[in-house]
Structure formats: structure tokens, C-alpha cells
């Protein structure tokens, strides 16, 4: 069975566009993960600090704190610096790739959901120290 060796991971999804956030949340919930969402980077950062997830999936262009600013804030926080981050971007792939070191994966919308699931499994399966 496909999910047998998968860990149940807590994932924070940060996206101001609720359709995309809800869709991704359902997709990952179906894969057996626990998902919580935030509507912008600032709420996302707060949620991450409270819940200490195994993975963050964030949009780029958001109010109050962009995906890039969120990744920078996490990198600057000793406790959260190792947290894996997947960036999902619309037209801003280029800006994001200038800061490629902050992200474990960068997906351009629209993305192939099986590749997303693969990336999520890989990043949540690996113990943090081995990354």
C-alpha cells in the first residue's frame, strides 16, 4: 500500500488565494497528512512558531509578508532554520529563483500534483539532520 511507509506529517500551507490553499490542503489530507492553512506570510509565521510543522508550502505574492519574506524570517530563526520549504509561484518564479537557497523546491503554477506529492513525501520522510 502506497501510504504504508509514509509518516503522517504536519504541514503548513500559506496562500492568500483560498481556492489554491483549500485544494492543496485536501490533496495532502487525502495523502494522510495533517494540514493547517494561513492566508498570508505573517499569519503563516505565527502558525509555524506555534505548531512546529514538518514542512511549509508557501505562495510567493501575498499580503503583509510574501513567501520570500517568510522564508527569510524562518532562515533567520535558529529554531526554524532547518524547516523544509516548498515555494509555489505564479509569475514570480524568476525572483524566487534568485533566492533559491531558501527553498527546497520551487513549483510554478499550475503544477503537476503527483510531483508535488512526491516532493512532500521526500521532504517529510527525511529526518531533518540528514537533509
Amino acid at each position, binding site marked *: 500500500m502506497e501510504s504504508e511507509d509514509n509518516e503522517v506529517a504536519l504541514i503548513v500551507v500559506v496562500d*492568500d*488565494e*483560498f*481556492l489554491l490553499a483549500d485544494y492543496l490542503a485536501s490533496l495532502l489530507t487525502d495523502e494522510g497528512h495533517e494540514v493547517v492553512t494561513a*492566508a498570508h506570510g505573517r499569519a503563516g509565521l505565527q502558525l509555524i512558531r506555534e505548531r512546529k510543522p514538518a514542512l511549509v508550502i508557501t505562495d*510567493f*505574492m501575498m*499580503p*503583509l509578508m510574501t513567501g520570500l519574506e517568510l522564508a527569510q524570517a524562518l532562515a533567520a530563526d535558529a529554531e526554524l532554520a532547518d524547516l523544509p520549504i516548498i515555494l509555489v509561484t505564479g509569475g514570480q518564479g524568476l*525572483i524566487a529563483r534568485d533566492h533559491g537557497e531558501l527553498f527546497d523546491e520551487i513549483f510554478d503554477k499550475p503544477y503537476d500534483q503527483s510531483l508535488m506529492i512526491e516532493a512532500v513525501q521526500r521532504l517529510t520522510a527525511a529526518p531533518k539532520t540528514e537533509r
Partner: protein
Amino acid sequence: MVEHLTRLTTGVSGLDAILGGGFVEGASYIIQGSPGAGKTILSNQIAFSQAASGHPVLYVTLLAETHDRLFQSLSTLSYFDNTALGDKIKYVSVFQCLRDEGLDSVVKLIREETQRQSARLLVFDGLLNARDRAETELDVKTFVATIQSQAAFVGCTVLFLTSTRLQESNPEHTMVDGVLDLSDELIGERTFRRLQVRKSRGSAALSGFHQFLIDDNGVTVFPRLEAFLPVPSINAPPSSARIQTGVNGLDQLIGGGLPEGSVTILMGPPGSGKTSLSLSFFSLASASQPALYFGFFETPERLIMKASSFGLAIDPLISSGAAEIIWNPLTENIMDKLAHQLLAAVKRSGVKRLIIDGLNGFERAAVTPGRLVEFFASLTNELRALNVTTIMTWEMREIYGKAGTSPLPDISALLDNLLVVRSEKAASTTRRLFSVLKLRNSTFKPSDFELEFSASGLSISCADESGVTEPEKG
């Protein structure tokens, strides 16, 4: 002292003129219209134009549609610039914020984000959705008031987009500085896109409807000509010079040619020689008298071929830039678009000889024929001020017999000269007769002349009642 308000230019052709120079900086506007009316294309065009000038823009949506779908549809338009996204233009959705936390939180979020982005322009797409969420009208009023005052405080102009047509009594309507109404109306079998500035505080906008179109370049608005040019753009003294017609024998009959800067209507039934006469006038194009043939019927190639059949070589004139032919087929035209296209071409090459073949082309493109008189008054006044000598053809129905009255008597009064060509059956042949009915500041012989075609051009000679022609004495 009259204070001039700083303007935010729209980057939409025609719209700044209608708004009196653009949006007032720091003011707020409602852009309303039914779905498909062009609100999103228009407001994004303004946003990208601002971004291209280096001014940051915040585009806030309250819609279910994802931004990617929006970008996908905008990507077909020439103004769309992928590299501005997330940089000079930031699109954010406040749908979740509204759903989870309410209008107050949206207001707070927009305030912070406007400052973070140093936005000069804020577009808020989905005022209707904000209304749904509001408990009372007071809430919406407070929402709009707060958004606009916090934006005005930092000099940011606000565009609220809504798909409902708000009545003038709506609280939003009374609060904002301006309201732009976009509509897409079916008239007969055809739809017309029209823009109207319903409210414009602190600034005189051009009133009434202005037609616009949406193509790969986004929105282009054509200010209603008589509102755009109520008086000519320049004040030029009248000229007493004469412009040669190119028809052998005609200039002597009318005092040396057509009065410079006059408008002539050339009436006649099909096949009577209107186009040939026009081409003769056109063929005298030169570097000092550039010519424009603005036609609706023959293609440029056919006109050139027709001219060569009576010895006129048009090709070299076009190659040298002395002459230009613009052809708008008689399909679906927009009357004001035609006028703006015509005037732009006249100004571009400093046209002195203009043929409009014919007036019917404008008449067919009129949505409301009732405004033709005002339209032509504005157009002909401008052409006179630019010192353009114009011949406009007018197609009449009767093929044979005496010329009737002008089909548009109100328009005849706006013209300086009235020339008529007609066909007359004499025995087994058909003669083409030419007469002058009106000529500005000139004496002329009010009799019939015969128009003759030969390989060396058109000529005019005296025609008596018996049909025997005699050469006209100069």
C-alpha cells in the same frame, strides 16, 4: 486662482482626455460594469502603465478566481509584463481575510500593504463582494470611506471595481470622487462598448458616452468628437489662396481652384465620376501639399489602378510620402474611431489635400444618427483650422436626371462648397454633367458642364441643352 490637481495618467488611449488629464492623484473612483464589460482589462492596463513608469501598484482582489487565471488571460495583451509581477505590481487576495475576520481586518490589511508596497495606485476588485459581507449600508460606507481616506493620506489613487451598476443614491457613489461606467450594449444586431464618466469631482470630464474597443492592446477609448473638439484645436486665420483641383478646365470656372481650407461636398450617383474627380485632386499631392485619401469603398490597389486608367500615376506619390491612402472597409466601424484616425493621419503628415470617400462611411458607423450634424461640425471645423482642403463624396441614389436635394440638409449648411455630378441619357450615349451649387467667397457660373474622361485625365467643358459641347473659355 484656479488650482490644477496633480494627475495620474491612465495609459489608456483616449481616457486621459475624457478625464481632463487623468485620474486626480489621491482620489478614489468606482469603475462599474456588468461582467465582460472590460473593467478588469481596463484597470490592469492602468496598473501596468503605472508600473512601467516605476510607480508601485497594489491590486487587491475579493474574487474566487485565482490570480493565475487572471494572469493567463492578461498574458495575451501587449501591456502585460510578467517581470512586473510581485515587483512593481503586487496582486493579493483578501478573500480569506474577509471570510475569517471581516471588513475591519481587510481595511487594516490594505492599509499596511499599501504602505509596505509604497503603492501609488490601489485597485480593489470586488466591491460587490464587500457589500455582501457588510451587515448594513453603514458598514460599506465606512469601509469605502476608510479605504479612500487612508489611501489619500499617502497620495495613493484608488479604483474600486464592481460588477453592479450602482445607483447614484448608493452610499459608495456619494463618497467617491468619480464613477466610470462601462457598458456593452446591443444596438440592432451589433454590440457597442461605451464608457461614461458619471461623476467627476474637481475636474471637468467629457460628458456622455464614448465608444471604446478591446483588442490585443487592451482598451482604446474614442472620445466623442464633438465633446472632444467643441472648438478647433488651433486658431488659424482663414486663407484666400486657391488649391488646384487637377481637373482640366475646372479651376478657371471657380476662380483658380477650391478655396484653401474649405470643405467641399461632391454629390453624385454611382458611376458619375466622384471617385475619378477625387483622384484627380489627390494626384496633385506634393511635398508642400501632402494628400490623404480616406476611403471606404475601393482598396488602395484598386484606386491606384483606376487612377492609372486616365493617366494619373499615384504609386510614386505614395513611395515619396506625399500621398497616403487609408482604407476602412464598410464593415463594422466606430464613427469616432474613424474621425480620430483621420485627424491623426492629417496631423502626422501635415495633409493639405484630403479626400473622404465618402461621407456615407461615417453615417453608416453612427450609433445615433441624431448626432451627425454636431459630429461633422466638429470634424469640418478642425479640418478648416488645420488649413486642409477637403473633398467629401456623397453617394446619391438617382442615377439619371437632375440632382435632388442633399439627403442631409443640416449637414450641407456646414459645408463651404457643393459640387454635383450626375449622369444624363442623351440619345444613345450617357453624358456626365457637372455643376457648382455653392462655392465659398467665389463667383461661379451656375450652369451644367460636361465631365470628360481621357487618357490624359479629366476635363470639364461647357454643355448646352442640346448636348453639343463647346470648349469653355477660361
